């Protein structure tokens, strides 16, 4: 009986260690999920502000777009640092490049919109 007791005790300890490892794994997955979701949320906020600027041509939405773009760059930097899976790192780098191109186009739109405003007024 004591032998059974010891075997179950060892098994139980081993299972506790497994749970600890699973929890660590779960934590890393949760961190990765939150980092990727943060980029997406900030980007969606930024494009919403950018579209508002194109519609209204107001300073408020232009400033908001720029603020969100800075926050987004921060989120991308955090994801580059926090995401450990290599294939996901590649996706984040591609997303960063796409964001740079998006923002370069937004700068062109902003310049053209300011020119229009100057013509109208």
């Amino acid at each position: 009986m004591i032998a059974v007791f010891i075997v179950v005790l060892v098994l139980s300890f081993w299972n506790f260690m497994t749970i600890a490892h699973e929890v660590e794994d779960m934590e890393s997955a949760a961190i990765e999920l939150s980092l990727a979701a943060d980029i997406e949320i900030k980007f969606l906020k930024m494009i919403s502000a950018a579209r508002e600027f194109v519609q209204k041509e107001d300073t408020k939405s232009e400033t908001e777009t720029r603020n969100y773009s800075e926050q987004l760059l921060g989120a991308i930097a955090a994801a580059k640092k926090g995401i450990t899976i290599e294939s996901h790192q590649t996706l984040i780098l591609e997303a960063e490049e796409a964001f740079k191109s998006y923002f370069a186009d937004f700068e062109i739109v902003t310049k053209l919109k300011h020119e229009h405003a100057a013509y109208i007024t």
Partner: protein
Amino acid sequence: MIADLHEFVKEAEAESNDTLLTLSFEARQHAFLIQIYTGRFLLEQKQEYGAKISKEFELFQNYLDRMEAHLHTERERELHVELSTLRKTYHDIYWELRHDQEEIARLMDEAMPRFSAIIIKNTEQPEHEAAEREYEVRVRALKAIALVEAELLIIGGIGTVIGFIIAFSIARGISQPVSATTSVMDALTHGNFSVEVPAQDRGDEISEMARAVQIYQR
């Protein structure tokens, strides 16, 4: 353009030039429409105004051309030259704005959504994979927790049984020699001195008690 056309109207009225007056009125009306449609085109960004503006420019030019034959004074000729220049400048700026508007529409509707799609796709993929991994790990962890719970129950059960056995053995180890010594003492009080006193070699308090009882036997 409209200020010049106001002056044209006044000039034509002053010299009773009815044809020029009518043409100036018409040209002014189209100049107004050009302004209104251009403003709407820029503010509302509706492409449908493009065709209207082009048509109004055409009609305005048509009236300008017709006015040329009815210019009598030097001032009217000056104003006509000025109007033609203004019309050309306005028209050039309008086309520049229209081109820019098309460029903005192209960027907003084609180029930028393409980049948006890349960003959303590239962030959603790790999100989905991380969520799936989190779910799988959670299921595994829950299974391991259930196993540990069962193991703890077994450990608890076995521990209780072992504890019970140990407690029972200890109690029995104490109560049995005490009971035997009590029986010996009972026999001694009844004059039976041949009984053997048990538990004398245990090396504890019970053996001391047994040795004390043995004194009575002597």
